[in-house]
């Protein structure tokens, strides 16, 4: 793999982390209102999977979408403005942090857990009907695998052999309930067996493995070999939302998972393999922090939408 590609992985993961930091700051100042769900700890999933895609592929995301959005190529300042409910946001601030759409970038997120899965079957069906070559990635969390939409959607995708990579981002908690209390199976990917499709579970702290796995799966799906369920084991370092009392887990547990933080892990990899020097990484990080700061300042200058904008595009 080229040095440039490796550095881009790092750059994007770090950017998503810093983007989240800005969001947290704006949330604590009530600039970003409700509906923001921090993504910290899961960055390797978004970057690993989205890097395996073409620009023309589609990504459907969840109530925790900002990492997927940035990794899919959405403009960070437009995403941030949307999260702050400002004009200049992707949907002029009308959708907010978990319901935005960047259709030119073929990205959409929806905040009803599991509902993106049936929607993705429609994209897959249209792609197939039009004999196009794109594929769809449908991201969802562990909690979504207990919704009817998940089971109905996977079944439909399976019987019609639709070009969809289902990515279950298992961050261990369905809001405040541990997934171990919500299912009786070890691996959520085994649910693929019910639908006669391939299911695989991998770890979420190793971006190179995520990228490799996703790339191979995308290739198969593009060839028409049907949908696949990929479960990626990960962990969110922050609460479900900002202000979450987090009484459902211990600080020790969080600290234990932070040892597996994919970002420093990959940073070390880049240094150990002598892919790049520390100064180079420092510069990348500094530039991203400055970029994020600039974006934040830009967003704060954006006005809130007018009533005319708020009442249009209903029909």
């Amino acid at each position, binding site marked *: 793999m080229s040095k440039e590609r490796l550095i881009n992985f790092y750059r994007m993961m770090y950017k998503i982390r810093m983007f989240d930091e800005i969001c947290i700051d704006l949330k604590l100042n009530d600039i970003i209102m409700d509906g923001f769900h921090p993504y910290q700890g899961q960055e390797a999933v978004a970057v690993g999977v989205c890097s395996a895609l073409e620009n023309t592929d589609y990504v459907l995301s969840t109530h925790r979408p900002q990492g997927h959005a940035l990794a899919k190529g959405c403009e960070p300042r437009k995403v941030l403005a949307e999260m702050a409910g400002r004009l200049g946001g992707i949907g002029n601030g009308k959708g907010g942090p978990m319901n935005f759409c960047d259709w030119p970038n073929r990205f*959409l997120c929806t905040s009803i857990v599991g509902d993106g899965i049936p929607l993705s*079957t429609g994209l897959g069906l249209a792609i197939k009907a039009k004999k196009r070559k794109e594929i769809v990635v449908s991201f969802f969390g562990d909690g979504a695998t207990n919704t009817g939409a998940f089971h109905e959607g996977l079944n439909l995708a399976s019987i019609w052999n639709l070009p969809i990579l289902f990515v279950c981002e298992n961050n261990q908690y369905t809001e405040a309930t541990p997934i171990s209390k919500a299912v009786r199976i070890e691996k959520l990917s085994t649910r693929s067996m019910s639908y006669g499709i391939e299911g695989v579970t991998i770890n979420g702290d190793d971006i190179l493995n995520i990228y490799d796995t996703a790339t191979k799966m995308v290739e198969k799906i593009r060839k028409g070999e049907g949908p696949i369920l990929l479960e990626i084991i990960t962990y969110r370092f922050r609460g479900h939302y900002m202000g979450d009392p987090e009484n459902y887990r211990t600080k020790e547990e969080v600290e234990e998972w932070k040892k597996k933080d994919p970002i420093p892990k990959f940073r070390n990899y880049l240094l150990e393999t002598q892919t790049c020097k520390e100064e180079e990484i420092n510069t990348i990080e500094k530039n991203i922090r400055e970029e994020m700061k600039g974006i934040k300042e830009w967003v704060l200058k954006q006005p809130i939408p007018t009533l005319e904008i708020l009442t249009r595009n209903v029909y």
Partner: protein
Amino acid sequence: MGIKTTHSYPRNTNKKCVLEVMIMSREITFAEAINEAIQEEMTRDDNVFLIGEDVGVWGNLFGVTKGLLEKFGPMRVLDTPISEAAITGCGVGAAMLGMRPIVEIMYIDFITIAMSQIVNHAAKLKYMSDGQIEIPIVIRTQQGVGLRNAAIHSQSLENWFVHVPGLIVVMPSSPYDAKGLLKSSIRCNNPVIFIEHKKLYRTKGEVPKEEYLIPLGKGEIKRPGKDITIIGTSWMVTKALKAAEILEKEYSIEVEIIDPRTLVPLDEDIILSSIKKTKKCLIVHEAPKTGGWGGEIAALIMEKALDYLDAPVLRLAGLDVPIPYGEVENLLIPNEKDIINTVLKLCNKMGIDFLEGIV
């Protein structure tokens, strides 16, 4: 030869045009009218496809989609598993990529399973994306009593959808309207909830062979009159027409019957103009009265035509009771006799005291 008009066709009132009568002479059923609309639109536009439970081989529970699978093949007429959420969500997703899905939900009672896809996604995506996405989907379903099939196969749920901005709600009452409105619905770029009535499928009516469209948001005077306005929907229009005949013959009361045909968008003008003429209004629908569409129309009339009213606006609606099993289902919804009695009271007496015994 052919009729140029793409607007509603004043066939109940016209005896004037021989040419029109000739063209209108073909009679087909409501079910056949729907089938024709789907066929014509699927032929015209490759993006139109049909998806639902048993719409293909079976041809739908009432035979509405018979022959479509043979004509268009399994890529455009898709039999699905029993998965209303996935069927509907799949339709919404396909619409996002420019397809024009016709999603069939076998009974409106089953639409409960698909509500999130309709209310949270189909109705909202254009708004939340500020116009980046349009959802040109038609969700066809049927409702009402008629199969004596108890409380969860007989409901009338139109007002749930009326209450959700972003949705268009269509309720045809005749084969002619069904065909013209369905064709317009398929061409519409917004999500349309197209509600048929199981009692209407076998009813026959005049439908021209020539292509026509009925615009969404345009009601029709189904029968002109000067003494009282009845606003009705779906099967209730048929009942109101029968009642109106008796009222004219036996009591010399000339009833004007308005069918808005689309509940959203609503043709306010046709309603208000009629009220201004007759000064009395009865609203009839099969759905339960409480929280029903009739209350909305009554309020509209109060807000915009109060000064014209000679009597309070009344509603005849289904009782606030689940529909029971069996023939007795008809006891819970308005019938012709109820309509006649209510009209007589509204026309003969003024003031508040006459309400006794009606409501």
